[in-house]
């Protein structure tokens, strides 16, 4: 009898605690994001047959005055060292510049890159910019179920783009643990078919726990069998970054 009571109590408690899909994603979105970031990314591109190629890039990003700026510079491999890529987003407009040291010229790039591959990896630009959270208002979120993973309750939410929203994916299924509200796994679907799977292998607290940042991520393209493991190293958050970093001069500097 007592067991039944306990079970009933637990059940009603879980009902009381249960969140809707929208609420889960709001909690995910509520994480503060840093105003600037600086660090190194090591990307391992892993082919279907297991061949590994490593790329290392340095990243600077800054959000200020309604402007998002990001500079990427290749460190390795040697033959692309110094290649730089600058993105400035303002008022929904995107300006991109590319510097190829072999040509010694900065080129402006037109055309949308957001669905394109990020540095030749399995991440798209969209995926990278959504790492700090997708634009939740563009999607409808439905709680599919909850799972228990090692004692932690995990919400499984399906996010479908609202009509008229230009999304790379037809839907995403997001696994959100109730203790951190930092997604651990996202399945990306294209035309209803599973396309890619993102796994956050490691989430680290920064600034005394103010930020929770995934530092070891794996994106697998299920259709091609190719995957990318991305490690964020030497991360510094909310550090002042000189505006001179986001210029052509800095791009050309070795």
């Amino acid at each position, binding site marked *: 009898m007592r067991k039944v009571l306990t079970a009933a109590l637990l059940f009603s408690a879980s009902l009381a605690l249960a969140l809707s899909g929208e609420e889960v994603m709001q909690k995910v979105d509520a994480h503060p994001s840093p105003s600037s970031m600086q660090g190194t990314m090591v990307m391992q591109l892993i082919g279907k047959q297991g061949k590994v190629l490593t790329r290392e890039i340095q990243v600077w990003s800054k959000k200020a005055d309604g402007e998002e700026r990001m500079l990427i510079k290749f460190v390795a491999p040697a*033959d692309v060292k110094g290649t730089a890529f600058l993105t400035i987003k303002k008022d929904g407009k995107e300006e991109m510049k590319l510097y190829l040291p072999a040509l010694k010229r900065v080129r402006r790039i037109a055309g949308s890159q957001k669905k394109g591959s990020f540095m030749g990896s399995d991440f798209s630009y969209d995926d990278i910019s959504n790492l700090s959270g997708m634009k939740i208002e563009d999607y409808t979120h439905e709680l599919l179920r909850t799972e228990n993973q090692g004692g932690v309750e995990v919400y499984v939410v399906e996010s479908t783009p609202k009509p008229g929203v230009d999304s790379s994916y037809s839907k995403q299924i997001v696994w959100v643990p109730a203790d951190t509200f930092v997604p651990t796994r996202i399945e990306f679907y294209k035309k209803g078919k599973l396309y890619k799977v993102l796994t956050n292998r490691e989430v680290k607290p920064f600034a005394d726990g103010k930020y929770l940042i995934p530092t070891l991520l794996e994106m697998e393209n299920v259709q091609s069998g190719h995957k990318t493991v991305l490690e964020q190293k030497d991360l510094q958050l909310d550090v002042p970054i000189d505006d001179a970093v986001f210029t052509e001069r800095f791009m050309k500097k070795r």
Partner: protein
Amino acid sequence: MAIRHPWRVIGLFLVLSAAFGAGLRGLELDNSPESLVPPDLPAKLLLDQARETFGGGEMELAALEGEVWTPEALERLRAATDAVAAVEGVQRVTSLANAKRMEEDDGFLLVEDLLPETLGEADVADIRAYVEGHPLYAGRLVSADGRYAAVIVEVDPAADMKRLNREIGAALGATWDGPVHLAGTPALSGYILDTMARDIPRQLLLAIGIIGLVFFVNFRSQRGVLLPLLTVLVALVWALGLGGWLGFKLGMISSILPVVVLAVGSSFTLHVLNRFYHELAAGASRRESVLLATRETGLGVLVSALAAGAGLAALFTSSIPQIKSFGLLAAFGVLAAFLASSLLVPSILVLLKNPRRIMDPERPDAISRAMRGLGGWLLGARKGVLVAALLFLGAMLVFIPRIQAETSFLSYFPKAAAPRQATELVDRVFGGSDNVILIVDGELKDPALLGAIYRFEQKVQAYPEVGSAASIADVIRELHKALTGAYGLPDSREGVAQEILLYQMSGDPEDLAQFMDEAATTAQVTVQVRSLPSGAMQDLVDRIQADAEAIIGPHASAVNTTGSTVLMLETMRLILHDQYVSLGLALVLVAFFNAWLLRSWIVGLVSIVPLVLTVSGQFGLMGLFGIPLDTATALIGAIAIGVGDYSVHIIVRYLEELRKGRSSAEAARASVYVSGRAVFFTALAIGGGFMALLFSGFAPIQTFAKLMGFTVSATALFALTALPAALLVYVQKDRKQEVVQDA
């Protein structure tokens, strides 16, 4: 056994037939290139590896007919491309609708989809101008006159080609409003499978009809028609059922299996029944007649069944999977027909009442009189006949080296067949429906290697048989133009690496994967070629290989050629080589069985005289009339040996007469007179059965049927002339008093 326990025998056959028959459900049709190409062929391994590295598979080329340069048409092309991409088993789709555009535009490097999301008239004119200036697209994805758009579909080679072809056709038909022409392997395979599904039952019924008619003319009774047909039915169920159990699939070549089993198998019962009715007519009891038919004639049937089985089983040495399984199943079918005719038929004969009217099939009639005349003439002309046979052999040997091999898939089809016409259309408007693939291993970031690949492409594109060539070098040249305003290649390794990186960043890295592996150590150069007959194709492939060696070779660590065309050419070489092995083996086996069962080496050697003459006749005629040796006609030698050994009945009768103390002249006369009639009708039944293949939808099988017509008549002719002549000259008396009696 059959006489004492007929019901047990019948029961046993029922059980076995049910067991084998259950396998029929597992029997499938398949004519994928996989079933024709030996799995361990080096070019095949290379192609598999290339497909693993660069993606892609068998190529289907769709030509969409209609004015391409309108906003509506491009929208439909986009819908068509999406629809095809959604088909299960499609790995990659390439068309104008998903092509990339990369250019210098007002100081910007523009990297975007060729087709913007919304299309107006002005956009179309702009796209057209861009495409016409870019060799990667012009003439490849759209015809020069703008009347045809290409959709290049790469499909999983292991997928069901028939379903794929149907679904791709349906997807295109639903989205494009003009005619759609489908060429390439899935289209051809789909057509082959449809044709097979239609031809097999039709040919089988026709063969049954013809053979039944021949049997009716011979026996003038229902039993004389039904019993042989029952035998072959058993044989067919066993052979095809075994195929199902073993997971074999019937392809274009093996689709002739039912007819082969039918034609060869029916002859066994013909001999058994002939003797049975003959004895019955001569006044013997039913049991005695059955006994004589199975014992005396049974020996001949056993020898010819073993020979036929050996000839067909020799095909098992072939390296071509489809020919291998055909050989095994056909040999098994022949064995089953033998068992049925020497066990099942006698059991039924024992149980059945005597027919009301008994007609001696060896009765004197026009045919018997002709045979009697022939026998008499032979006695005087034996030397002359042998000399004539030698002259024939010599003449034919002269023509054999002229035989040409042919493996072009296209040659299978009648000129009016849709996929053949589509292929010719694609050859005409897009410069080729086939391709030769070059795998280049080396340091691909080295501008010298890229330059060499580009020079190679220029060289081969000048050949009239080549449409276009595509490689990483073209992509980098295109990119370099967009970056710098001029076509060219970067002058340093770093420059190449950075431009490749830019390309990877600007789109789907998979776009590049079809040209080069991620580590930039292996590249795939695709040379688009027209469909050509094997000889011309071999010549072209040789030139391409030589150019690659000369131009790319010095800068690369390895250059290899592959592609489905190259596979078919290499397969052909194997077929030719296998041909001699299996023919030689089959002749040796037949001579051995005949010698062993008839207890004389001389007899064994003499017994293959008609076969040697027939086979050399076949190949001589092919050389003389320019009939190509292809996947179907390559079987002809081994099958000739399989079906042609009915001449053994002449030998068995000849020896039987000698044993009775007759002179060789009398024995020869008697054997030609008595067995000649059976040989004549067997030839008619077998030849008639093969004539059903004349109605095949495949040109090589029609040719095969015609050649079988020659083969069957020639074997009969040689069995009734050269064979008795040789017997008269070389076998004067039966060495052994006792011939093995037990069948």
